[in-house]
């Protein structure tokens, strides 16, 4: 009990550092979670831009009307006289963005599959990237039209066919957001938690162990009548109680952010399991740091290097979808990667199935495995230190 109480007495003196990490993390996490939640769910990250277009139709066939009909949903069309100065003036004053010029005989060339003598022309505002986008769309339209004509369609049939195709809507989903749940505030907040657990786990455990491992203090404790086993139980109790507090605070914050829905969400137990594994990893890293580090600066170094490297390369701060093949292969060696993958899977879950459980449990097991491996290595280091001294 004395060692347990002492753990928190010493921890109290690091409350400033812990609080600083916590506030920075919470601020970033809350802002990112809220931003992420609103931008995707309400579609606020995208807004369509309409170009002001005009067509100068020297050919006077059906194509000019067809192009206007096809694009008038997305862009605004204005009527212009073929007066170059007037057009340039309107472009200069941004009353027009792009003017398409259909040369005489263009449609005939299109039907003969030979437009080498008459190509589409344009007048546009230099450096306007949205007009380049329209150009690309137009080229696609002409390419499709050419394809249909080659298949035996007449020009009006081909134009009607393209209009009909445009009416069909295709729903596209980005791979990382397979399920809209995956993008909710709970999932996103939990995605960022590894940084908190790694940094605060290392500080909260490492700094205390550093003190307890000082040779003079250690000797004095060894000389006491409190058995080693009892001292170790007190220490482990302190570490787990500290970990429990971290977990609790994270749940309270996510509870507030999700307006309590996290407590009724069917995914919460699985999130908790994943969080618990990551918490153990963070605490074990602290156990390791407190054993090998010689001073507080070394612990801070471990916090910064391990915390940031694991979080950036594991997909906590950067979506895994952005990783190249090489980085992805390397990321699989980090426990944070498996945490992130599990978190996304749980986020997208609507009900637990045995297949899903078979997928999740080994992933959580990998994180736990890392925690166990680090703890085992640390115990070997402690044992070696003891035998060297004897």
């Amino acid at each position, binding site marked *: 009990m*004395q060692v347990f109480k002492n753990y928190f007495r010493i921890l109290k003196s690091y409350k400033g550092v812990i609080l600083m990490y916590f506030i920075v993390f919470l601020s970033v996490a809350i802002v990112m979670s809220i931003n992420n939640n609103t931008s995707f769910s309400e579609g606020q990250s995208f807004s369509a831009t309409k170009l002001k277009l005009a067509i100068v139709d020297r050919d006077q066939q059906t194509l000019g009307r067809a192009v206007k009909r096809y694009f008038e949903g997305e862009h605004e069309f204005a009527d212009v006289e073929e007066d170059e100065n007037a057009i340039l003036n309107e472009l200069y004053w941004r009353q027009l963005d792009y003017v398409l010029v259909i040369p005489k005989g263009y449609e005939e060339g299109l039907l003969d599959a030979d437009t080498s003598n008459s190509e589409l022309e344009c007048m546009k505002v230099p450096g306007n990237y949205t007009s380049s986008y329209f150009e690309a769309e137009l080229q696609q339209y002409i390419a499709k039209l050419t394809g249909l004509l080659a298949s035996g369609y007449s020009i009006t049939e081909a134009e009607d066919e393209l209009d009909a195709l445009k009416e069909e809507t295709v729903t596209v989903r980005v791979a990382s957001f397979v399920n809209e749940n995956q993008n909710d505030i709970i999932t996103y907040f939990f995605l960022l938690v590894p940084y908190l657990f790694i940094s605060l786990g290392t500080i909260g455990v490492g700094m205390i162990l550093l003190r307890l491992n000082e040779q*003079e203090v250690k*000797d004095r404790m*060894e000389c*006491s*009548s409190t058995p080693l086993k009892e001292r170790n139980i007190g220490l482990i109790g302190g570490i787990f109680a500290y970990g429990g507090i971290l977990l609790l605070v994270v749940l309270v914050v996510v509870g507030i952010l999700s307006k309590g829905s996290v407590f009724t969400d069917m995914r919460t137990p699985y999130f908790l399991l994943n969080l618990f594994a990551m918490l153990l990893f963070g605490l074990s890293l602290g156990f390791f740091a407190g054993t090998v580090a010689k001073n507080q600066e070394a612990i801070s170094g471990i916090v910064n290097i391990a915390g940031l490297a694991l979080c950036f390369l594991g997909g906590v701060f950067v979506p895994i979808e952005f990783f190249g093949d090489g980085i992805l292969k390397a990321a699989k060696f980090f426990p944070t990667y498996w945490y992130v993958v599990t978190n996304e899977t749980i986020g997208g879950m609507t009900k637990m199935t045995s297949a899903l459980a078979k997928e999740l449990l080994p992933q959580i097991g990998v994180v736990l495995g890392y925690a166990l491996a680090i703890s085992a290595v640390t115990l070997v280091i402690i044992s070696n230190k003891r035998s060297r001294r004897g």
Partner: protein
Amino acid sequence: MVVEIENLVKRYGDLVALDHFNLAIEEGEVFGLLGPNGSGKSTTIHCLLSLLKYDKGTIRVFGQEMKPTSYDIKKDIGVIMQNVAVFDELTVYENIDYFCGLYIREQKERKQLVKEAIDFVELQDYRKFYPKKLSGGLLRRLNIACGIAHKPRLIILDEPTVAVDPQSRNKILEGIQRLNKEGATIIYTSHYMEEVEQICTRIAIMDKGKNVALGTKDELKAMIDLGETISVEILELADEVKEAVGRLPHVIKVSYENYLLKVKFSKGKHNLLRLLDLLKEQEVGFGGLHSELPTLNDVFLEITGKELRD
């Protein structure tokens, strides 16, 4: 016997730190372990406390074999090591309370003991101070309070006055004598012979892991041939006079440096008178004069051929 050490051998690779070391300490003693740095004092203490494994020998404390798991024995031992062993993050009170709590579980009893320890080392005004705010002397006193708060029967102090100002050193030494008067047996290691002479009832002199001499300070001084050293301030001393001094009875060694004639005599009577007569006879004028009895350093020098502080 409070402590019995028999044939203790401790090796670090090829280096023999303790070479068949023997020691027996009785209850109520203030026992001094004296020796230069590297003589094996701290190794002896570490083995005695089971902080170090040893290669051979037996250690018994309060009549029982001492092992790392001898918690019944450990509860009656207080340890004050050479380096200060406290937590910088805890206040003076919290530090003493923590270390006392490793022996005393009952909170009320512990509170009283912590108070007594604070009073004992006179840190009442510093209860809420953090160690970093304390001076070297106050820090040493806190270190002592952490080791004695649980009222142990055997207190081991390993060079507790290193880098301490004279005022704090005196307080520490007085405190040790008070603890002894209250019934505690003390083991005190130091390379400061004056301290050991001042407080220890028996002394063991260590060198190269061996116990080279053992006894009270008078017994130790009686072991050597040196009787006294007489120093005389002389402005000018002719070589013939110096040689004549060397021919006086009981003279062991004569030296003249910095206007100071130093003559070492073996045990014998009328040494001072004979020296003064000779100086008068040779018409040598002199100023100050003083006589010193042998110190533990002289004992160590005669036994080992080197100074304690070498």
